[in-house]
């Protein structure tokens, strides 16, 4: 394997693991449900695609790459679908947004 392919795989997997760390951090620290869902649904798909792409570059042209591409395609279809189902179910059960917080001092008591 050439140096460039190795570097591509390395960079892709490193970026993917960074994005996955952002997923965990967002789910742990964000204040309410819909923002947590926003944090996971996007970064999950991107991080999985990046890590699996790095692994596929590592594997070269083989059966393992075909399987990895299948996993990646499936995750890219089901991730947004599951997020859509999550937000729709929560909205159907009237899980509402918290009141908007104002940063200005004058509006501290309003709403």
């Amino acid at each position, binding site marked *: 394997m050439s140096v460039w392919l190795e570097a591509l795989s390395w960079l892709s997997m490193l970026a993917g693991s960074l994005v996955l*760390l952002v*997923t965990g951090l967002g789910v742990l620290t964000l204040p309410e449900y819909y923002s947590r869902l926003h944090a996971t649904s996007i970064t999950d798909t991107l991080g999985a695609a990046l890590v699996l792409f790095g692994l596929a570059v590592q594997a070269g042209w083989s059966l393992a790459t075909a399987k990895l591409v299948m996993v990646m395609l499936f995750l890219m279809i089901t991730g947004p*679908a599951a997020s859509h189902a999550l937000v729709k179910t929560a909205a159907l059960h009237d*899980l509402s947004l918290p009141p908007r917080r104002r940063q200005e001092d004058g509006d501290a008591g309003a709403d």
Partner: protein
Amino acid sequence: MTYFTVATLAILVSMAMLLVRAFKGETVYDRILAVNSFGTKTVLLIALMCFMTGRPDFIDLALVYALMNFISTIAVLRFTRYHDMLDDDDLRARRLSAPIAPAIEEELT
């Protein structure tokens, strides 16, 4: 390979954070969300472990786990809406008078 280790550690840390949210979650949906994301990370962890141990044939396990994760998330969400797994609307209408899972309903409201 060192960067397999780096990616595995990042995924494990992220999984720990998701587990904290799954235990702490204020609503049921927070828990379902955390478990769904945990499953996606398990798929990635299985794929990474296949390459770390030098046996790429086991990616089939990751594929099966991805399928099961999606279906179980949809099934649990359906259960929070209908309180059963029925495919029959008439049977559901007949059972609707008796709530099956009052504990879940209490937590949802």
